């Protein structure tokens, strides 16, 4: 498949995930890597990492949200996902460590949205502190003494792995419905 076409498919997949997550009425993902790479790039101890989508929760303290979308349709291609997922976990932790150095640290929420399940033997553990610790330990840019159990637990609680089937859009609120519902829910905190 030509690279351009692959990119178009990736773009459409990311847009579909964005619609789906925003239709929950809890999340707004203003930024996508194709148009706003500057706001989808997170700074962490190992440098910068680009995520597919960035935004925030609409409620509460409006925590940052980063989304990585993986559009694989076969088990074979999904096999390579685990390495990427470990990197994603390490970046999430490294980002939290980096945020700790700031006056107002923001510990983000991280969504890994895959079109195909992977690493089924570990599937139930993918969001666990143990999995995160393993990923962080393997990352060269995180010093050994920086693996903090409390922070590991905090970040692990903010990792979410979702399997996305585009057909789910059929059972998702339409934009018109989201508009109507959001008007009543008043999710967005006033003044933020």
């Amino acid at each position, binding site marked *: 498949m030509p690279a351009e076409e692959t990119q178009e498919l990736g773009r459409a997949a990311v847009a579909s995930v964005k619609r789906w997550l925003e239709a929950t009425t809890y999340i707004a993902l*203003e930024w996508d890597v194709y148009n706003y790479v500057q706001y989808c790039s997170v700074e962490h101890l190992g440098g910068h990492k680009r995520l597919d989508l960035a935004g925030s929760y609409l409620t509460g303290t409006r925590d940052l949200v980063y989304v990585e979308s993986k559009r694989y349709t076969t088990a074979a291609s999904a096999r390579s996902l685990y390495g990427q997922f470990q990197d994603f976990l390490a970046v999430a932790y490294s980002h939290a460590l980096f945020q700790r150095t700031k006056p107002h640290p923001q510990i983000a929420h991280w969504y890994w949205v895959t079109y195909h399940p992977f690493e089924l033997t570990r599937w139930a553990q993918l969001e666990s502190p143990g999995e995160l610790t393993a990923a962080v330990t393997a990352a060269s840019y995180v010093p050994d003494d920086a693996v903090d159990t409390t922070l590991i637990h905090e970040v692990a609680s903010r990792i979410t792995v979702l399997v996305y089937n585009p057909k789910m859009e059929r059972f998702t609120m339409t934009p018109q419905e*989201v508009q109507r519902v959001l008007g009543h829910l008043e999710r967005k905190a006033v003044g933020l």
Partner: protein
Amino acid sequence: MTGLVERIRHASEATLPGDYVRDVKTAVIEEIRAIDATATVEDTTYFNHSAIPDLVLSWADQRESRQLFLRGSYAGVIAGRDVEYLGESRPVVMALSDERADLPTALRPEQASGRRAETLVTDSSALESLSEEPVSESPLAGLVRANFLRGGKGHIDEEVAGGLVRAPEFGPEATSFVDVVRNSFNEAAATRIERSAGIMDLALGRDLSELEFDPENPTAAPIRGVLSKAEIATLIPWLLRTPSVTQEPLFWRYVGSMMTFKDLENIATDVADLDMSALIRANSARWVAGRSYIGVRPTRDAADGLAEPLVGEWSFRGGLLGLDVGAARIQLATDGRRLKGRPGSSSARWESVREVLSGSNVVGAQLRGVTKAVTVTANAGNDIRDDIERFAAGDADDYFVDEVKIQLPATEELAERVVTVSFSKAFVTAEEASLTDLVDATTDVLGFRELAEFRGAALAREAESPQ
């Protein structure tokens, strides 16, 4: 001023996403206001959301508002399948990047069904090209601009937008232009633009006979209806400024039948100092207002040595329609907020106004003597001049008239109505009277002293046609 495209590019240098959103929205909102001053723009505080618009545009004279979704690029519009997902509300989807792109056929609004076909997909370059200095003097260009966000549809990029604002003034090109308009605007907007093209055509010399009402074929009249604020703001100043526009009362009555005097007041600054006489005289019997006032005519620089005419032209000055008459200026307004009276003006003696009221149906009066003040009111609209006469003659007190109420008979356009002439405040008021009523009462009754020589001059009416 820096253009929209450049402002958006500059905004993307912001480190903080919030600053980017603020700068982009400010730039877009300012651009919208430059294109269509009649639009009210609401910021939803969302940005690039898949379901919630960034801005909502509304218009005082239109029930339905229009949602505007900002997208990073055309590629984003395509990836998000925005026409398919959002088209039901016939929104505007605007790509911020000036990168040109063709929409895949399947994703073009014109390929969509129902309301989706009325979605407008556009970009920052197109919007910027619309707000630039007009290439064409034609009011059609102004209407294209004013209707773009309100009624634009399909994919309108910079090239298409540029073609639309180079609207021709009139002639066969204007006719083909209307076809282009039909493809780029929804029914309501296209009708507005087409109607204006029709009015311009008539104004510049087309046969006016179609304006004559034909009882045999009552539906044959040209497009009528109510002119929108945008049409009034673009078309009326052009009609008044263009020397070759016909002076035929028939034409000006047709234009006036689609608007009100209040509409005209609302564009007072756009038509300041232009000669409004043809428009006013043709519509003075039907257009209604609430106040008329006699002020002192402002002295003008007479350096050129030319004597000013005794009766000038109807014109707007300081936001008020008026006519210079001798040493005075008659001013008209729909309400007292625009035109206040002049407290301390002198009341009139009954003996002085008795004569000017001959022939009028006086239904009320306020008289003030040295020791008493009396209000006389008629029951059931009977004339009370004789009662006032008896009262004023039979009392030792010396009475002045503060105000009189005159009932006017029903006309083709208006039912019976009462005008109140206030001598003490130097104005005439009415709940709803025609411009003719107000001006006649001002000239013939209120101005019996300063405008005596213009009595019966019917200053607001059309000259009798020489038949």
